[in-house]
């Protein structure tokens, strides 16, 4: 698997780009690119050019790289916002936390009881780091669209973790996860539309008003 490691490094770098940017358009495009890279990664990790990995890879690229970004861009256009202003955690601190998370993942992955073929590979640390970065984005940003991006990154991490199980996990599960994701984004898109209409903004802090007394 010669080309896998560079792709993983690319994914890690995209994580940092996501943490550092405040432009929503860039964030969406970066997550889309990360999804597309994952599609390539699927084919490479599964090794060889069998039909089913290629189908899964193509589906991944189509859904994560094209379909979901298109939906998000449309939501962005409808909401007429461009930037994430005043996140809870500033982008510099986010970058630092991301670096800590990535380093911790690499250290932590060594302690995990992994299968011999994953020992020393970057796949597990990168997956962990992506999950953590996804969570970081989810908890530290205010706009609903950035939250969706965080959710996507989190899901990318889980997807990468699933790649380590490619012998044990049927493709059905991966396809199912992809479909789930699509539906989730669809629903979130509708919810965002409602938030926007109700509060004239996509700031999720307004959702506190929905709390039941």
């Amino acid at each position: 698997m010669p080309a896998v490691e560079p792709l993983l490094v690319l994914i890690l770098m995209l994580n940092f780009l996501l943490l550092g940017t405040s432009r929503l358009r860039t964030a969406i495009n970066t997550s889309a690119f990360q999804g597309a890279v994952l599609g390539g990664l699927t084919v490479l990790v599964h090794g060889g050019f069998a039909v089913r990995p290629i189908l899964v890879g193509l589906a991944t690229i189509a859904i994560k790289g094209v379909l979901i970004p298109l939906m998000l861009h449309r939501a962005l256009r409808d909401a007429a916002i461009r930037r994430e202003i005043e996140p809870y955690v500033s982008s510099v601190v986010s970058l630092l936390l991301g670096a800590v998370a990535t380093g911790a993942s690499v250290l932590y992955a060594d302690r995990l009881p992994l299968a011999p073929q994953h020992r020393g590979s970057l796949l597990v640390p990168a997956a962990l780091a992506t999950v953590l970065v996804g969570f970081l984005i989810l908890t530290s940003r205010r706009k609903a669209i950035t939250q969706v991006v965080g959710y996507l990154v989190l899901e990318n991490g889980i997807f990468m973790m699933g790649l380590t199980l490619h012998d044990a996990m049927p493709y059905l599960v991966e396809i199912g996860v992809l479909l789930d994701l699509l539906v989730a984004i669809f629903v979130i898109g509708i919810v965002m539309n409602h938030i926007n209409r109700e509060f004239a903004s996509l700031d999720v802090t307004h959702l506190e008003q929905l709390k039941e007394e």
Partner: protein
Amino acid sequence: MVSEWLVVTAVVISALSGVPGLLSPRQGPARERLFTGAMTVAAVCAAVAALVALFGGTSQELSAPWPVPGGQLAIRVDAISAMFVLQIALLAGLGAWYGLAYWPQRDHPRDGRKLRVFYGAVTAGMLLLVVARNGILFLAGWEVMAASAFVLVSTEDHLPAVRDTGYLYILSTRAGTLCLFAMFALLGAAGSSAGAGADLHMDRWPAALSSPLGDAIFVLGLCGFGLKAGAMPLHVWLPSAHANAPSHVSAVMSGVLIKTGIYGLVRLTSLAPSPPAWWGYALVAVGILSGVLGVWFAIGQHDLKRLLAYHSVENIGIIFLGLGVAVLGRSLGRSDLVVLGLAGSLLHVWNHGLFKGLLFLAAGAVVHATGTRQIDRLGGLSRRMPRTSLLFLVGAVAICGLPPLNGLVSELFVYLGLFRAATSHDGMWLAGALGAPALALVGALAVACFVKVFGAVFLGEPRSADGANAHDPERPMLVPMAILAAGCAFVGLGAPVVSMALDVVVAAWIGPGARSAPALSSMAPVVWISATSAGLLVVIVLLTWWLVRRARSTAAEPAVGTWDCGYAAPSARMQYTSSSFAERLIALLAFVLRPSVHPPKLEGLFPESGSFHSHVPDTVLDRVLVPSFRLAARLLGRLRPIQHGKLHLYLLYIFGTLIVLLLWR
């Protein structure tokens, strides 16, 4: 193979039967006829499959791989399945015809389509689950059935009472399914530790059921299946669900849907090679409780369909009694008890489907004609709806276990089994000694209850304007009722034929390995039953004919007597009402039933006019469950502060949990 494929066909057709109606925007009756036709085809397929499996001999398993963990698409129609398939086919098919006139699209443009789609789905789910040989496939059928029934119960979801009923139903059915999930998980775990593999195929269940986890599996099954069957402490959802659903849905629910719980228990106990005796005692105890309290609660009801629903609880009790006797017989090696108990139990499953289906359909005809379910607003319907009242009478006689109809036969089998248990010397005499009197009490109270219903609804004079213009329903509603009534008579008169079918089912329950059981006809006087019933029927017909002739030939009595015994101006309000008739019986058991009575305040010599009001709430629901849920809500309310509505902090909770779990060890 034939019957398996036929059942699969029936499942597919009934699942799709309502779909064409969704695709067409038109309101015409063609789609309803298409639905009814499809349901009829499905019912005929399933019925033929069941008859082939019952009388044609061998059945072969149909299986295909299914990429779900532990799952397999395995289907087989053995004799036990066939009994239930036949019943589902009969009631679902007849209910579809009844629905043509009872719930026509032109009168119900809002919910007619929804009703038909999910009516088909519920039928498909039930058919699937009774033929499934794999636990996961069983659960799939079970959930399709339970979820579709939720939609059916809340058909008229614009009414608040119906919505409450729907919520109560879905909560109960989720609780039951939770028990079943746990049960199947244990079955898998125990099976794999016993070396039979984690696959949930039924062939592997005996190993799991005889392992140390077997008792836990049985308890979970008793809770999960008991909730669906509506056995006494678990019946809370049943009365209101049966009362608020459209009547043909009530008939299907009461007639067959709750029986799927019985099917589960019958199947589970049939696969236990040597069940401990306490399983049998537990079933008998639940049976006694359900039977006695079910009928007693029924006496206190003023809502016709709610009353019938409580009778379902009672009849489930009788079924549990029989099953308990059979399990006791199995665990103590008494094959005569197995035959009598199981035959009584399963025949009562059948019979209850026939007469309760009939009663619910007849009650539906009453509701359709008068627009009310309140017994105290009805009266005198036998003159306005003669056919319906005759059919209702047939159902009432049958459910009371009176000759010459079917209720007698199955209850007699259970009685015989209980008597044999009572006179045995190996410790189970208590079950028989308590069960037989309880069954007698149930029978007597059922007679009292149906005297009340028939007297208040069909005899006397109308109590309100609701019933004044009532008339018999159209033919699509009458014919299904007549078929069910004929079924009641058939089981009563043709007991020898029925007992032959029951022998096949009992043999399937016992399993191929054990020694063959004695025939039912060698232990119960089946020929005498049918001969006596036939003789009685002839006497009844002759007597009726003579009475009618005499009534016609004698001249009409003068309208007013000399001094009228004080009844110079009788009014409909002087009749016994349902509450006044039941008052004495309710008072006997007031410490359990807890009736709420609101008497008028009468003061002085000439008190102002007042009103009297009483009703019997469901003790388990209103005095146990609701207060305990309130308490739980109050205690758990202290955790409210962590539910602050801040999305980021919620995510942080998850994040924190994840980190903690990662660093664990």
